[in-house]
């Protein structure tokens, strides 16, 4: 007979399994975040490096300058509306796929753009929106003067919707697949007409999937800098662009760190609200 594992043996097993991963997360996720926090409290040296004195001046500057508040507002605004458009496009699509006889094929059609390189997806819209692009080709074919479509807010919206649409459809599809359709029949049976029955019996079942999809789309849409950088070039500045700028040409790492902390705080706040409504299980589903 083998002896039951001793506490010492159990500790050894735990260290072997959890140890390396936990150490890695500590070194490369926790510590960098703490460094970022400290950096956000420091000042910009003459060469852009981080120097004392410590203080809240970066945050004060951020929240007192209407320019930066406007950037935050714009990020949230564009993120929110992109998400709304994505939902309008993606919600019916998920239902169409779920009830189709060829759902595997249709799902693959959603997954292909999902796995296509992010930059290529953004790049495609440059090709469409640029001065000699597809859209202007169409416009001039009708004898109209070519439009200045790039850089523009419209282009940023379109590309954001395009880029993150699959992120929304996939979790929502999973929710639609799990729908208990007998509830729809129950609603009919109890006298609800089709639209009412859908609203009362089916829609509530998709709400967790909606929340999940919303977060998967909204967070990266608010945090992105590539889309605004390539398609909004200079015209549309989001918080992601601001951060990139501070670590790039503006050479103000301290201020950039503060802006990052603000972005991170917004995300964590959103997640906290989500976890409160959906529980931790909800967080698991995000992956």
């Amino acid at each position, binding site marked *: 007979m083998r002896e039951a594992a001793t506490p010492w043996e159990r500790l050894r097993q735990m260290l072997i399994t959890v140890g390396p991963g936990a150490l890695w997360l500590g070194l490369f996720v926790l510590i960098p975040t703490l460094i970022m926090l400290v950096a956000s409290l420091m000042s910009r040296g003459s060469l852009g490096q981080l120097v004392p004195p410590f203080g809240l001046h970066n945050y004060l500057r951020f929240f007192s300058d209407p320019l930066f508040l406007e950037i935050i507002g714009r990020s949230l605004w564009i993120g929110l509306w992109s998400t709304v458009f994505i939902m309008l496009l993606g919600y019916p699509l998920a239902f169409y796929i779920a009830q189709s006889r060829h759902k595997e094929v249709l799902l693959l059609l959603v997954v292909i753009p999902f796995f296509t390189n992010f930059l290529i997806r953004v790049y495609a819209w440059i090709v469409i929106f640029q001065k000699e692009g597809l859209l202007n080709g169409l416009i001039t074919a009708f004898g109209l003067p070519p439009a200045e479509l790039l850089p523009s807010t419209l282009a940023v919206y379109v590309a954001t919707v395009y880029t993150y649409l699959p992120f929304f459809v996939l979790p929502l599809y999973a929710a639609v697949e799990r729908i208990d359709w007998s509830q729809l029949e*129950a*609603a009919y*049976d109890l006298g609800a007409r089709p639209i009412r029955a859908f609203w009362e019996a089916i829609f509530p079942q998709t709400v967790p999937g909606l929340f999940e999809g919303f977060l998967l789309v909204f967070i990266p849409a608010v945090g992105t800098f590539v889309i605004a950088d390539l398609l909004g070039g200079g015209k549309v500045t989001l918080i992601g662009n601001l951060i990139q700028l501070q670590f790039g040409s503006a050479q103000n790492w301290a201020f950039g760190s503060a802006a990052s902390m603000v972005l991170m705080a917004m995300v964590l706040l959103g997640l906290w609200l989500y976890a409160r409504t959906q529980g931790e299980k909800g967080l698991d589903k995000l992956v």
Partner: protein
Amino acid sequence: MEPTLFRGRRERKLGQNLAVRLEGITKRFGDQKAVDNVSLDIRDGEFFSLLGPSGCGKTTLLRMIAGFDTPDEGRVIIGGKDMTEVPPYLRPVNTVFQNYALFPHMTVEQNIAFGLRMKKMPRDEIARRVQWALELINLPGYEKRRTDQMSGGQRQRIALARALVNEPEVLLLDEPLSALDLKLRQELRVDLMNLQERLGITFIFVTHDQEEALVMSDRIAVMNKGRIEQLGPTEEIYELPKTAFVAKFIGDSNLIPAQALEPRKVRTALGEFVLDEEDALTPGQEVLLSIRPEKIRLFRDKPNLPNVFRARIDDIIYTGSENQYVLLADGQRLMCETLNQDIQEPGHEEFTYDEEVWVALTPEKLVVIEGGVEGSNPYA
């Protein structure tokens, strides 16, 4: 004359009106006929069961009465009106679903109130009726509970209340007890029977559990492969099966192939048997004799009875309340059940393995099934 039906041993008087009439209903899924030309009448206030193995079409039939499916041929008439094409939300019927289909995002109260809300009933009236329904199912005080926190039996009762609160003309029950454990099932059978009697609502009950159907129904329609094999009062279904399928599916039956010698005399592998006076066969006709295990009598000494032959006890299955004997006679196996009572009188004796016994088949208990051996396996 008013139709008189038996349920249990109690006499029940039913209304004259038809609650539901099905006329030549056929439903195809692909090239498979799920329901094949079924016609039947269900009377007002009746407890009617559709009984059959899975895939026999009973649920499809129920769904067409509810309005979830439309028949390819035939008509569904509810309360005297043709409702074949009427959507479910306009039919005066309600359903208790197999998985209950309770709305998980609503409380008990909201679930029960749903149908009344759809009818735009005033609030206080809804509240009053919900209270009534909760008392009906014995769950007062559970208004604000979430349904996913409740046990299977409670959920089942809420589903029942949610349907009944709308005062449907007909209540459809799709295997409502199948997800519960045996003890609870037995309790709820009685509850359901009493409830039905009290409210006087027509119940159409779908089940694959023959005991459930026998306990609760006024009449049973036994279905197989989309058709009705036999339709009749409960006792008739059990005592006088018309087909080998019914004999095998409802309870256990010994089926003995036989050939008629005279109108009331047949030859079998076990010897020549005389039949009941009501039977009248044409000589040479091939039939099946069916006899229930509990109706076979065993004796140690040769009794002075008709239809007696020798057999050997091949196996004994002790179930507590009963002894089941597996008999072997001329290569034919017969099942015999005797109650495990302590009296040791002829016909109620206890036997041991390999004992040679006398078997007596009482003529009145031998049911003749015409149409030969075909289909003797209900699961084929």
